[in-house]
């Protein structure tokens, strides 16, 4: 076999009575520790594909390996205890408390009680829930909290693989964004191999180390890192699925520290009007920044400089948005279009690093 944690080879599924196969002839693999997002329009077989991995859906043909075992030959219920499973409707057991829900798989595996109790406490903390919630029933929790319990339950027996079927599809957008961020934070710590299904391309781009774009009938159109897919969609279907704001989506994937910053039209206090003016001309702007080395003080319009003879160190306009290098180009662009100087100043703490302009960002994604 291979190093891949999950591997599908020529897998197909035709449902009884279905004219065309739900999944045609699908092959891909997921290396250990990767989040692979399956995304596509309804009818693309993404959920069917996911459910074949833990054999909730039996493949019609093909071979599947999970963590080195042949999933097709394994006893389904034993296979599934090695695979975390999170679904959209959470599927929490209404008659069991939060603690009991989380303890489900360890109990099935026959762990002793102390070990289970210890693990439950650990998981409640890991997914950011309040310890007091452990004795409540699912119906007493909000949608977002229930979904966190669902994730904790899936992680309980520390399975190497996690399957997530539109887990954040039923919560409101604000909670969804928070859960997505939390999942990435969690993944940084637990390093599971995750297959994640969604119909939301933005979610796919945000969460996926790689994204697999499926077309109706389980046809794999493109698979790769989101940045690569956005940069080079292989065909019209993928391009259309990504949407017309593909460029903007890419910007949200590129951190500022990945691009070269420009020092910007910055002059030191005491610089003459003439020198300040030629600096502004070089950048084709009607203002100059004022700073000393890594200390950016502010900016002012050239017209304001006319009455003074040299660049002052006080009474300057503030750069209202100060971006950190971990911010994305999308955030930088937002800062640019909403600032009067039409630039985004980038800082590392208090240290001024340079500026980004709309032109610079445009160069970055068209290069």
């Amino acid at each position: 076999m291979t190093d891949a944690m999950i591997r599908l080879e020529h897998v197909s599924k035709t449902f009884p009575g279905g004219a065309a196969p739900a999944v045609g002839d699908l092959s891909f693999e997921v290396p250990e520790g990767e989040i692979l997002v399956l995304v596509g329009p309804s009818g693309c077989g993404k959920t069917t594909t996911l459910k074949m991995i833990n054999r909730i859906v039996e493949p019609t043909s093909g071979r599947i390996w999970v963590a080195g075992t042949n999933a097709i030959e394994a006893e389904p219920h034993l296979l599934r205890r090695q695979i975390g499973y999170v679904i959209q409707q959470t599927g929490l057991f209404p008659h069991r408390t939060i603690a009991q829900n989380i303890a489900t798989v360890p109990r099935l595996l026959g762990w002793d009680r102390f070990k289970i109790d210890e693990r439950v406490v650990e998981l409640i903390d890991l997914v950011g829930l309040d310890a007091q919630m452990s004795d409540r029933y699912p119906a007493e929790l909000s949608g977002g909290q229930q979904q966190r319990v669902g994730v904790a339950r899936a992680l309980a027996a520390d399975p190497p693989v996690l399957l997530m079927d539109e887990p954040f599809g039923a919560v409101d957008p604000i909670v969804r964004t928070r859960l997505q961020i939390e999942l990435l934070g969690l993944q940084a710590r637990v390093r599971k191999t995750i297959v994640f299904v969604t119909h939301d391309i933005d979610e796919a781009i945000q969460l996926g180390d790689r994204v697999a774009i499926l077309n109706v009938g389980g046809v794999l159109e493109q698979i790769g890192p989101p940045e690569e897919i956005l940069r080079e969609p292989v065909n019209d279907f993928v391009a259309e699925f990504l949407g017309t704001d593909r460029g903007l989506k890419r910007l949200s994937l590129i951190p500022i520290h990945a691009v070269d910053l420009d020092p910007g039209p910055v002059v030191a206090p005491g610089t003459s009007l003439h020198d300040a003016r030629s600096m502004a001309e070089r950048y084709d702007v009607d203002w100059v920044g004022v700073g000393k080395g890594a200390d950016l003080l502010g900016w002012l319009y050239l017209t304001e400089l006319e009455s003074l003879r040299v660049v002052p160190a006080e009474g300057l306009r503030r750069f209202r948005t100060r971006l950190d290098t971990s911010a994305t180009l999308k955030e930088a662009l937002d800062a640019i279009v909403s600032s009067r100087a039409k630039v985004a100043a980038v800082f590392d703490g208090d240290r001024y690093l340079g500026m980004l302009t709309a032109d610079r960002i445009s160069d970055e994604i068209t290069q």
Partner: protein
Amino acid sequence: MILAQSQRPFVDWSWIVGHLDDIWARTTEHVTLTGIALVVGLVISMGLSLLAIRYRVTYQPITWFTGVLYTVPSLALFAFLVPFTGLSILTAEIGLVSYTLLILIRNIVAGIDGVSPAVLEAALGMGYTSRRAFWEVQLPLAIPVMVAGLRVASVTTVGLVTVTSLIGQGGYGAFILRGLRRDFLTEILVGTLLSIVLAVVLDFVFLYLERRTAPWAHRRVA
């Protein structure tokens, strides 16, 4: 008759005081007849429900058959059974049990069907075998609907037990029957009221049991 009644006190308290032993004996009898009917009815219903859930095609015939049983007038059923099983508890119970089946089976099946498919999928997805998922997930979740059925069945059964007085059983029904024969209002009232009280008490007992076995069904976001 109106004249005769008006001459007697509305309720003859001395009769009640003089028959406390008898009332207690009939209470035991009534509770026993009801209890056996519900327990046996539940066991049979559970069996038939499992069959109906496992093999869906059997559900229609099962409800049809128990539905027919349910519609047979109780008097006719007992009269029909007496030549075979005599004036016995068995005769009474065959009738009483028959009348519980339709209600109980419908509620058990509805309770199991009412379990969210997502919950079942999650159970299987985490590694429950389908047998274990049935006993540990589906069945406990069906308890509220099942108990609702038991409550209806218990009220019906308590009432029906009085009819079995016609075949020499009957619990409180014996008072009603004798009171009617003797035109003695007190005895009729005692039989009727106690029967009602027993039905109400049983209903509360089941309500309490349901709250104890399915506390989760009564908790919501505060």
